[in-house]
């Protein structure tokens, strides 16, 4: 009986040690967005544990700094965020409340992915709040360009290799595979969207500028009067004119925005409104970076073709 108990005890001990040793090897990562989490998972594989603060259906501009986010970041080895002031409202509070020296700015566990891409729409001249919710360092929605996803993946692979040199080969191998997969799909996505001649769109918010640059989509105007500022009736009338004068066929909005104004314009002009995920998890079908981009391209293709 005693021998049996000892065996069970030793088995549990072995299991515990195995589990803890596996856990100990994992790099504990907190990301601000689900796109970063998805790309990091592709690169880190089983060697990383990832938690994204923003959920895919949330607007990451307006997350609130919940204490539970501070606890997550307190236990993290690495913080990866989008930058360009996307998370300006809340990230500094979370970092401060986390009291984790490893993830503070300039530390090895702190990674701002915006340093690795070429920002678009950097405003010129002096800025003030009358211009709406402007981002002085450029538009932060660069995750929607597959080419930028490759740059993000490169930066993540470099960082993981630095923090966990033992598994560098795996990270590099995963990176190569990720780049291969993206490039394969990118050719296909471009082929499908290039077939469409009229790709003029109106957007609700300037979320899609990197996506449009990648696929040659022509943004004619925005429903928001200024970034983050809802439209006035006069502005809506101007957008309606823009739609009619430019033969615009599609209005695009992110899934976390209210459809009130896009639907109003749709009803007045007959233009189709397409609701797209701006991040992984933005719609149920968008479960990874690849499926999100596939969903976006398919929806655009269908919208342009049917209009």
């Amino acid at each position, binding site marked *: 009986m005693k021998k049996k108990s000892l065996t069970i005890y030793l088995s549990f001990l072995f299991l515990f040690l195995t589990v803890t040793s596996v856990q100990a090897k994992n790099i504990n990562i907190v990301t601000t967005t689900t796109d970063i989490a998805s790309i990091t998972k592709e690169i880190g594989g089983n060697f990383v544990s990832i938690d994204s603060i923003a*959920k895919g*259906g*949330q*607007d990451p501009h*307006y997350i*609130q*700094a*919940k*204490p*539970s986010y*501070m*606890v997550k970041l*307190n236990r993290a080895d690495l913080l990866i965020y989008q930058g360009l002031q996307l998370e*300006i*409202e*809340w990230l*500094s*509070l979370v970092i401060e*409340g*986390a*009291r*984790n*020296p490893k993830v*503070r700015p300039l530390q090895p566990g702190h990674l701002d992915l915006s340093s690795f891409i070429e920002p678009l729409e950097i405003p*010129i*001249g002096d800025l003030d*709040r009358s211009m709406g919710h402007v981002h002085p360092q450029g538009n932060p929605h660069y995750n929607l360009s597959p080419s930028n996803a490759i740059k993000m993946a490169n930066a993540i692979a470099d960082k993981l290799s630095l923090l966990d040199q033992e598994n560098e080969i795996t990270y590099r191998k995963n990176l190569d595979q990720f780049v291969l997969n993206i490039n394969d799909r990118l050719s296909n996505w471009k082929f499908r969207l290039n077939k469409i001649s009229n790709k003029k769109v109106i957007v609700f918010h300037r979320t899609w500028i990197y996506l449009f640059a990648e696929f040659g989509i022509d943004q004619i105007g925005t429903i928001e009067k200024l970034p*983050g*500022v*809802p439209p006035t009736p006069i502005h809506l009338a101007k957008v309606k004119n823009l739609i009619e004068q430019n033969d615009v066929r599609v209005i695009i909005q992110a*899934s*976390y*925005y*209210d*459809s009130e104004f896009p639907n109003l314009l749709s009803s007045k002009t007959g233009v189709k409104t397409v609701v797209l995920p701006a991040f992984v998890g933005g719609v149920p079908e968008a479960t990874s970076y690849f499926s999100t981009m596939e969903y976006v391209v398919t929806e655009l293709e269908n919208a342009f073709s049917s209009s």
Partner: protein
Amino acid sequence: MKLFGLLFFLMGFFYPSIQSHAISDGKTHKDIKQLEQRIKKLESERKRNSHSNNISTATGLSRSFNPAISLHGLLLGTYNSEGNDNSSQSYKTGLSVEELELQLAGNVDTWFRVHSTFSMEGTETFGLEELVGSGLITNNLSLQVGKLFVPIGKHNQLHTHSQPFVATPVSNEMVLGEDGLKEIGFGANYLLPFPFFSEINLQILEGENEDLFASTVNDGFAYLTRSANSFDLSDETTMAANLAYAFGDNSLSGPYRTTEVLGVDIRFKHKPLGREGYRTTVWQSEFLSSTREQIKTGFYTYLQQQFAKHWWAQGRYSHSYQQSDRSDQNQYSLALSYFPSEFLETKLEYTHLNQYAADENQLFLRLNFTLGAHKGHNY
């Protein structure tokens, strides 16, 4: 060599005509012109910025390391049914600059960060409201020093611009005094290694508050301990429960020489995920009690609902009780707020104050604005 020179000459001569033939589409030509103009503008902007930055080396005047500066303005219109012949009335009928708050925040160096608030109540008195230096000592442990908003209850930690109602809860006025509990001191915050947020605060305070402490001896400090806890009940609902206890010498002698203060607050916040995320609901309650010769107690409870993207409706009940004269106050408030953006708010509030003296009916219309770089508020 001569041949190359000739080719260059011919290219220069023919280039404009080649260009004009190649670009037959007038729109494309116009686009290129616009792009060229934009590039020129960018280049001149870059030169101008680089020039102005370089000058700072000689003048010693650089704006690169300035702290983040913000100014909060609170402009108030008040109607009060009582006390209009009394100039010291708390909320008297008229128009006023309720408060201006000037905030400066930034990193002093790699280790130390400072956040300061200067406030001007009305248009004349300007003073230091808050000055907090903080630093991270090691994992989970941070220190704070300066003039602090003492963390007893939730309301006492809020700057005027972030308080949900214009009228201060009578419970806070009764227990902590009209200006609340702000003390010079230092303290430590430790984040406990629990699966939920749990923090312990310990503070040593000068104890200057005349309603509570104000010891006659120089070493009569006040001491605070606080446990702050927060739990996510779901991705959309969070509950916070905090308990604070402070004690310190006061100006009395004998059995009353020590004041004790207790604060308990609880808060539920529901914020839906997704496009309905603005439909936030907050329920918050707070109980305060102090002993300084006599027991004073009070509580408030309020409910806030963001019913549209830029609109909040809210109601609060607050009660206070003072043992000596067995007098109590009941305060009822209703408010409607409109936020065109996170930097501007207009609030209309009605408060009914039921008390031993004549009941008061107060009506407030407040404009609350934020100018400059101001970071978000804690959850």
